[in-house]
């Protein structure tokens, strides 16, 4: 039977230039760089009221919603056009990094810690409500990417540090496209392996150390296009695939190894998945009742303390109880004799879909409700530049779609994520045990039900955004 050739985005008319033109990424980065500069300027010097400032509106309403939708509809487009890489890439033309990233940091522990730190700072300093802090966050990203990648070889900022990049890469496991070789047999006779080592004409190979013939899925891939431009045989494309397929694969991944055996990856996925629930919990009314209850119990009103308690409950105690309990039951039922932590590592990727679904449901809500709120901001920025756009509406801005459709959409996302999580955990169960598979899978299914139930409850609660005035 003849094999159906995979759909290759780079072969579609209008997109071929992405693969052929060496400066394609630069061209995509430029507009985002200009937008980032505008947001930094406005965030530092403009109105310090979030809905009136482009930094807060674009970052917390548009960017996050667009990011999730793009990840699910296409792929990791933000990393592809990442503006933080622009000064770094230009600097690299002058400065050749001298150091190698320390071996003990070649893992996801630091990135997982930074992701927790980011979630904490987001709540503690009400980043969503502060144009100044939002601008400083953008500046910090530029500075960190520049400093780290000007000192260390490869792309350690993207691979080991950037919390945003980790977020995107984990979400892109459900993307419908991936960078992959077109004809695997061509690679077998390839002598130069330019896709990984780069070319003499200053075209780098994959700086994230993903070797195309052995690359599996989207993890650690920033869609930077370097490998595509480096391959002398035009053998790499943006190929369509079944979303989530890579979460079923047990193959070792180039530049990563087996995520099912890496506790650092498990922690990153845990923070991502449980962080989705925690982040939504921070914006609904019951969180304030809980804070009041905590204050009454401990007689401590410090927001840092209260937030720390919530974080420990959500990111340590709850997942440890749920995952530890499921792993223990799985071992008892199946007779599987690995350590609990090893069992959790194997199953952890199964929870990514429900985490991705929750982030999407949450961010899509803000995106849909607040899409047009950019108009008043744009109008006042243009007015400052002397351009009169007074016809642009500033009030009566409706959601992008009727509000009644948002909740069903969110429920649909959670259900879809739960089904995918169920499929992946079932597949993991059947690959690691032949004993009483259905019963052995049940504890994991119950964790998924608990998470889906929590997600649905969170999304059904009235939104309550406080920050500046605690309590």
């Amino acid at each position, binding site marked *: 039977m003849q094999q159906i050739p995979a759909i290759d985005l780079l072969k579609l008319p209008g997109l071929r230039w992405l693969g052929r033109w060496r400066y394609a990424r630069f061209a995509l980065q430029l507009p985002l760089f200009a937008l980032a500069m505008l947001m930094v300027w406005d965030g530092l010097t403009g109105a310090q009221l979030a809905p009136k400032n482009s930094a807060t509106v674009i970052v*917390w309403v548009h960017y996050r919603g667009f990011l999730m939708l793009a990840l699910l509809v296409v792929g990791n487009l933000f990393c592809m056009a990442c503006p933080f890489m622009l000064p770094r890439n230009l600097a690299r033309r002058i400065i050749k990094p001298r150091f190698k990233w320390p071996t003990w940091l070649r893992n996801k522990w630091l990135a997982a810690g930074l992701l927790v730190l980011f979630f904490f700072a987001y709540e503690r300093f*009400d980043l969503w409500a502060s144009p100044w802090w939002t601008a400083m966050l953008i500046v910090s990203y530029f500075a960190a990417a520049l400093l780290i990648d000007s000192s260390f070889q490869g792309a350690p900022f993207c691979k080991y540090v950037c919390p945003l990049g980790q977020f995107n890469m984990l979400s892109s496991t459900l993307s419908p496209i991936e960078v992959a070789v077109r004809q695997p047999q061509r690679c077998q006779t390839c002598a130069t392996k330019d896709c990984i080592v780069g070319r003499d004409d200053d075209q780098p190979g994959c700086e994230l150390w993903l070797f195309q013939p052995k690359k599996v899925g989207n993890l650690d891939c920033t869609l930077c296009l370097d490998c595509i431009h480096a391959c002398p045989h035009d053998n790499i494309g943006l190929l369509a695939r079944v979303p989530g397929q890579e979460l079923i694969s047990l193959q070792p991944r180039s530049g990563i190894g087996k995520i099912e055996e890496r506790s650092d990856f498990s922690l990153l996925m845990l923070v991502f998945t449980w962080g989705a629930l925690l982040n939504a919990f921070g914006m609904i009314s019951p969180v304030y009742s809980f804070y009041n209850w905590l204050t009454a119990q401990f007689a401590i009103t410090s927001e840092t303390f209260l937030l720390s308690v919530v974080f420990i409950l959500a990111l340590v105690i709850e997942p440890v109880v749920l995952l530890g309990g499921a792993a223990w039951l799985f071992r008892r039922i199946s007779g599987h004799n690995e350590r609990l932590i090893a069992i959790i590592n194997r199953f952890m990727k199964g929870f990514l879909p429900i985490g991705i679904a929750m982030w999407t449901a949450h961010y899509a809500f803000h995106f849909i409700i607040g899409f047009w709120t950019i108009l008043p901001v744009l109008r006042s920025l243009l007015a400052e530049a002397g351009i009169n756009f007074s016809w642009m509406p*500033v009030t009566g801005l409706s959601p992008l779609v009727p509000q009644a459709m948002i909740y069903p959409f969110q429920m649909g996302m959670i259900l879809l994520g739960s089904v995918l999580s169920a499929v992946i955990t079932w597949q993991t169960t059947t690959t690691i045990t032949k004993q009483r598979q259905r019963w052995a899978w049940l504890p994991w299914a119950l964790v998924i039900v608990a998470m889906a139930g929590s997600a649905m409850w969170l999304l059904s609660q009235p939104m309550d955004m406080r920050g500046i005035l605690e309590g």
Partner: protein
Amino acid sequence: MLFRYGQLILLSLIFVSLIGCSRTPSDDPRLLMSLEQTPSAMGVQTIVLVINDGSTPLDNAKVQLEATMTHAGMPSQIVQMQALGAGKYQASIDFSMLGEWVLIVNVTEANGAVMQRTLPAFNIQ
């Protein structure tokens, strides 16, 4: 070389901060504003704003009220306030979501002077 890049970033930041000095909307400290009652519950509420120019009630001004939340993403409501006399102005606002709100007052005085003030944020619970 790294140092030069650091300098460039620092200079850019100073530059954007400086050109931004003139970006805040004009306020007029002579005008004293207070709400008769700070809203605290969800739903449509009547806002009564009292404006004094020094110790004299400010009448005959055009007052526009904008109600918005302190976080981005919720559309604002902008309404023209109705003058009640004795420096009082009234409008209805629908506080449709729990959380922090602010009121932004735009005043055009009879002599054409324009000012804007953001009143302290409050919680709708």
